[in-house]
């Protein structure tokens, strides 16, 4: 029965349905034209009262329009069904990945705890196990944070703690923290501030953005990772270029990379773990700051360039940022009052 839900099954049903419609349409036109010719030839002889008024064509035209309408509706339903099927498949993959991502570190933690409890483990080995458990706990925390964070953004429950700051200084500080967290040496990254302006950002959220970009750069690099960042600004926006030397992206991947649950498989580095939520989360955070993010790549093994644009803070002009700031202040007041 499972086969009945496959894409091929739906395509076959759709093609057969269209063939049936077209055959019906063809037969109908043939029947109509044939009868019309017959009537034209012998109609007067059979009954002089039969007239070939123009109104006779009206039902024929309406019938045609209805049939075409039905055919169009079937196509729309088929298209939507395909989108639904694709989403279901992506969701199934996501559930599989999340199950794996949750259970693997959990199994490891349980195994190490049981080992420490039941065996006489040397201090060096105990230390190694504890470090591994901390790494797994961190992995679990990241996964849970990403799921809960995304839910909060999607349900518009998240209120940012915005602060107005100098873009260059703040982003440089954030990227330094991110690279330190991933144990990258200072040679592995370079930040160039060409020009800067004031922006209103939630530092923790923007850190999530750069954590994800740095993490991806590391995970999708065959050789030692190199990150180059450029911060520039004009009167309206801050533009941050994040360039890595990873495996790069094909044009079709560039289009989908920010989609929810989308993941890239590359046979050169097949062991990359993830859920397909990271870059979607990044996009949503940037979007909710009133900015946008795009990606470009010259192709396979030529690295990727992520370009983030954030609005420059101008109190009198930027309505969206002002609204975010107002909400942020309200939330802060509420938290203070509750405390």
């Amino acid at each position, binding site marked *: 029965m499972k086969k009945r839900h496959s894409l091929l099954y739906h395509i076959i049903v759709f093609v057969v349905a269209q063939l049936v419609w077209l055959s019906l349409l063809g037969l109908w036109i043939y029947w109509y034209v044939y009868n019309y010719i017959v009537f034209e030839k012998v109609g007067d002889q059979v009954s002089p009262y039969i007239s070939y008024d123009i109104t006779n064509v009206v039902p024929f035209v309406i019938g045609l329009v209805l049939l075409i309408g039905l055919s169009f509706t079937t196509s729309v339903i088929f298209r939507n069904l395909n989108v639904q099927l694709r989403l279901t498949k992506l969701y199934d993959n996501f559930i599989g990945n999340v*199950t794996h991502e*949750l*259970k693997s570190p959990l*199994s*490891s933690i*349980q*195994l190490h705890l049981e080992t420490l409890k039941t*065996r006489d483990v040397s201090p060096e080995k105990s230390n190694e*196990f504890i470090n591994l458990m901390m790494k797994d706990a961190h992995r679990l925390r990241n996964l849970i944070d990403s799921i809960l964070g995304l839910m909060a953004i999607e349900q518009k429950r998240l209120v940012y703690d915005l602060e107005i700051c100098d873009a260059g200084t703040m982003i440089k500080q954030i990227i330094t923290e991110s690279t330190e967290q991933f144990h990258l040496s200072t040679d592995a990254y370079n930040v160039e501030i060409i020009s800067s302006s004031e922006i209103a950002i939630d530092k923790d959220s923007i850190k999530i953005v750069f954590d994800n970009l740095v993490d991806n750069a590391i995970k999708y690099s065959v050789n030692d990772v190199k990150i180059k960042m450029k911060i520039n600004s004009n009167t309206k926006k801050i533009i941050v270029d994040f360039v890595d030397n990873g495996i790069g992206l094909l044009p079709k991947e560039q289009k989908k990379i920010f989609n929810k649950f989308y993941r890239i498989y590359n046979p050169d580095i097949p*062991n990359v773990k993830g859920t397909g939520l990271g870059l979607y989360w990044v996009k949503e955070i940037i979007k909710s700051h009133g900015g946008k993010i795009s990606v470009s790549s010259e192709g396979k093994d030529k690295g990727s360039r992520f370009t983030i644009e954030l609005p420059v803070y101008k109190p009198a002009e930027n309505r969206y940022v002002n609204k975010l700031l107002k909400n942020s202040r309200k939330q802060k007041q509420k938290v203070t009052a509750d405390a």
Partner: protein
Amino acid sequence: MPDTNPTKKRILLVEDEESLAVGLEYNFTEEGYKINWAKDGREALKFIEENSYDLIILDIMLPYLNGFEIAAKVRETDPQMPILILTARTSAGDKVKGLETGADDYLTKPFHLKELLLRIKGMLKRREWYKDTTSDLSVYTFGKNEINFENLKCKNDNDEFTLTPREAMLMKYLINSKDRIVSRKELIEKVWDMNPEIETRTVDNFIVRLRKYFETDPSNPSFIKSVRGAGYLFSVKPE
């Protein structure tokens, strides 16, 4: 210094999660096993080609080749190799697929260390028992049937086929207990090593399969007979 003790059982661990593999490697070594750790499907096949093992522990979600593919490849060359699947995938479909592909046991993550070690011990014990009992009798003939316990290839009146390792083990146990009634409980204990997931119904299903292979009329068996309320009896009438 490489461990060259020939009496140590060799286990191949195929696991792409480093922290889990480190913990398992430590525990297996402490239990006295010799371990090789493969991080992906390709490496696993290379290890299998170059070494001989007493047991293979397989994850399913692996780079290059998944656990099912590895199990199937192992079965092509070694039908008796004990394979335990250790995975985060819990669906009944995955379990069935794993067991059908040739795994002998299926354990889901997260697991208890003690349970894993007991299952490994049981699988190795069964392998030993199977080896011992087949060393003196590799080919057994009864009626028009012939079973080769080395490569698990069989012949009946009109067909050639291959038994699964568990079917071979069950058949072997019945043959060894020829003319003696063997209870379902005894079969679970000896052939399935008291696996808690095995029910008496599973034993009956295996018996039905064996009858289909070796009996001319499976509904009226002449070799593997049921003894009401007691179990099964394997006997061969002299022709």
